[in-house]
């Protein structure tokens, strides 16, 4: 994949215990999904570090979703809590450099919530598409 292709894409880090199943089901059952979404399977959303997300943005992704389990549903107890905190911190770091912080999103879904997962991704991709990212970055 080239950087140009990535620029319009969304990288979704999906917890394999929840959101990944939801996203895969959404695709499998033909729900309306943005085509530009690439999923990356992770053992827990809490495993995704700031540098993983930054690398995705650096590689040209227009946005990154950190898809975790619902509150108090993490198999590792605190993984989703830590993931959300980490993303909040990361948004602050992006703010610091004048990069649009809304390029990163924390979301949650249960394995059976394919429609919810699809809706979150659709909304996120639409929001990203409605903003001229290059212009936003330059500003």
């Amino acid at each position, binding site marked *: 994949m080239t950087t140009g292709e990535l620029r319009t894409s969304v990288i979704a880090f999906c917890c394999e215990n929840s959101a990944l199943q939801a996203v895969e089901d959404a695709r499998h059952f033909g729900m309306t999904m943005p085509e530009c979404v690439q999923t990356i399977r992770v053992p827990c959303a809490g495993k995704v570090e700031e540098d993983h997300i*930054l*690398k995705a943005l*650096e590689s040209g992704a227009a946005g990154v979703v950190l898809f975790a389990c619902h509150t108090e549903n993490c198999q590792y107890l605190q993984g989703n809590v830590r993931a959300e905190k980490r993303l909040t911190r990361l948004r602050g*770091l992006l703010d610091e450099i004048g990069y649009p912080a809304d390029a990163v999103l924390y979301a949650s879904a249960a394995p059976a919530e394919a429609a919810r997962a699809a809706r979150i991704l659709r909304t996120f991709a639409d929001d990203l598409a409605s903003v001229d990212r290059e212009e936003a*970055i330059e500003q």
Partner: protein
Amino acid sequence: MIVAERKAISDILQMIEGAGRVLVVGCGTCVTVCLAGGEKEVAVCASLLRLQNQGEDRDLTVAEATIERQCEWEFARELDELVPDCDAIVSLACGAGVQTLAAQFEDTPVFPGLNTQFIGIPEEQGVWTEHCLACGECVLDKTGGICPIARCAKTILNGPCGGSQDGKCEINPETDCAWQLIFDRLKRLGRLHMLEEIEPPKNWSHSSDGGPRKVKREDMIL
């Protein structure tokens, strides 16, 4: 460990202004443990610099490296091959690490990416507190292993002061009164009688008041 915090990216950008090739260097010891300057923090800092540069006309290349200890020549020399290719180094180490790199690489500007805060310990995950001021004349034997120099706001040697309330310090209700801690600890150890001895004024010439300090081990000098 030495505890530090990253400087604002805007400050780092200001330091490296004009440099086209920047090397961000981490340290694998104290600042890795306090999550300020290890390999991950180097990756984050370098990514932020690159991302910030995306909207700029400037051509900026940011390389990354992390060595075991920036404050030792042997490890600093591991950067010998990388440094000639860069216009500036951003060191994510304590002040000692920054100065070691600056001395090792005389022709390359070395900038601090961290603010070194103190010698401390992790109080809980994500929280570090100051525990040692490196005063040069340790009194922990007399104070139950709790340092009044670093942990008492007034650095008093014969405490507590009148501002100690309910075990907390008057300067900050979240801070434990060091002398309350000392009292409780000595009581637990059955050594409260030690508090009856008046500690004379401290000789601060052993601390930084005596100028830059040096430790020599004659038997180790080659």
